[in-house]
């Protein structure tokens, strides 16, 4: 049950990363810092008062989307056709810059916020106490997953996004404005990350270290679930959440090794992830 709650915040974090990799082919190292930025933005807007939580949540997400679009247009577009190591360096640079900018703007102490009113106590599921906010989080993540799926599989834009994952050149030949499409997808991915960060603010104290931890967790989830697959992100988040819970109960000293072991095993036997698609023709 608590595995679901852990999985929910991991999913929100990782879904964006997976989406970005699937469509743009970029491994976004900066993803963790956008997650952190979402949390900081929400904190700044609400000034630490949980009463205005829901009003500002949407605003914080919108801000993340806009920032994502701007970043893609200015920094990412020039390097999209370059070799991968430049993209990795670029996103790593963005990770460093955003984290330090937050440090300068907000200081280094822990920022957090109380649970929004109405969600501070436990609800009872099957007889055990379960924090209401966690239940809310699971609900939010599930809604996000369904919304994403609908967008990708039931709209024309979603069709374009799925197409560009498979064959970018063909889409360009068909006259689709692929660069604009990329900007939109990236912005949505960043919006998801910002959303994940913002809703996690009542649960954890944010600081500039969060960015680095978050991006590693996101990588693990996405590798396990499958780069480019939303359901993969969900499955990956769920698996990692369960492995962590299992590890905490069974072998607390080495639970962190289990997670990396799972990552390694998936890479060894099914490198494209459990729900990823084997790459088409690659030399």
């Amino acid at each position, binding site marked *: 049950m608590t595995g679901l709650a852990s999985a929910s915040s991991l999913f929100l974090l990782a879904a964006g990363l997976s989406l970005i990799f699937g469509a743009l082919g970029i*491994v976004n190292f900066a993803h963790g810092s956008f997650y952190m930025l979402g949390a900081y933005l929400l904190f700044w807007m609400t000034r630490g008062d949980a009463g205005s939580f829901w009003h500002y949540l949407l605003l914080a997400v919108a801000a993340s989307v806009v920032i994502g679009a701007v970043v893609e247009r200015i*920094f990412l577009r*020039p*390097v999209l056709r*370059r070799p*991968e*190591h*430049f993209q*990795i*360096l*670029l996103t*790593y*640079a*963005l*990770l*460093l*810059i955003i*984290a*330090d*900018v937050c*440090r*300068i703007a907000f200081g280094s102490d822990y920022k957090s916020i109380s649970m929004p009113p109405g969600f501070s106590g436990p609800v009872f599921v099957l007889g055990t106490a379960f924090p209401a906010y966690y239940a809310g989080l699971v609900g939010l993540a599930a809604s996000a997953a369904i919304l994403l799926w609908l967008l990708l599989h039931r709209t024309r834009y979603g069709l374009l996004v799925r197409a560009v994952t498979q064959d970018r050149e063909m889409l360009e030949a068909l006259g689709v404005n692929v660069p604009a499409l990329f900007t939109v997808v990236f912005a949505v991915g960043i919006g998801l990350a910002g959303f994940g960060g913002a809703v996690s603010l009542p649960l954890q104290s944010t600081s500039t270290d969060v960015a680095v931890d978050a991006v*590693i967790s996101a*990588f*693990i989830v996405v*590798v396990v679930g499958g*780069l480019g697959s939303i359901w993969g992100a969900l499955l990956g988040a769920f698996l990692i959440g369960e492995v962590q819970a299992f590890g905490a109960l069974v072998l607390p*000293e*080495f639970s*962190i*090794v289990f997670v*990396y*072991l799972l*990552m*390694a095993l998936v*890479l*060894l036997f099914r*490198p*494209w992830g459990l729900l990823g698609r084997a790459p088409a023709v*690659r*030399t």
Partner: protein
Amino acid sequence: MKQLPTFVFVVLLVLPWLLPAYAVQVAIQALVLAGFAMSFNFLFQNTGLLSFGHAAFFGAGAYTAALLMSKAGWGYLAALPVALAASALVALVIGFLSVRLTKIYFTMLTLAFAQMLWAVAHRWYNFTGGDNGITGVRPAGILGTAHGLYYLSLACLVAVSLVLSLVSRSPAGYTLRAVRDNPARVAAIGVSSFEYVLAAFVLSGMLSGLSGFLQLAWQRSAFPDLLFWTTSAQVIIASILGGSGRFYGPVVGAAVLVSAQAVVQSHTQYWPLALGLVLLALVLFFPAGVAGLFSRAERRREEESERAAA
């Protein structure tokens, strides 16, 4: 400017006598990272594989020597062959499992393995000291002094350069680059690319262990940080900053990175911001790295002199 490497070498030889004490310490750090970056870049340039787990070999070299010196009373140089053997062994195991993958999957797997090694070092308190590390390790005699360690690091860098240069220019080197550029063709002529790439991986790992061995002497201690992914990131940055397409690019990158870090850190705590901005500029405007800047200037000068002669 073919004489450039020799000229630089001569400068490096006399540098400790010209620099103040702290600058010599920074120079040693630069030499250590330079050797590490060259070892990393050998693999990256010749096989196209971007490893995010080279910290595993760097740390293996450092920890092996640290353990032998502190728990078994070995001397520093005596521990060197064992340190090299240990990092080569770690590279063999990780490489055997990783080299069959390509591109991002290879990168992720090397990251996973290095993190596993870090996690073990971090928690195996009774053996590795956990996050208390192994401290108070100092080479006896002249190698325990700043000048002694400087010349040892310089000698190691020269040795690593010679070895890598020889291998790069050998038939094996050509085979590697053939595998990088057209693996199907290589397979078609019956050459087992796996063995070649694995051998390159092990060589790269072993020489990275040499750098870790030197780092231990400089730091006088070994901590799990040496195995953490940020160490792997640093060597990637040094290589690409200097220009991974040029043989000595990583050396230039390491020197620039270490000096810049030492200077910036003494004035502000926002080094990550500074580094991020530099990397941004690098990727967007100077993809050939710092070494690329020199060769562009060189080419321009040649063009001008040709035009003048014409």
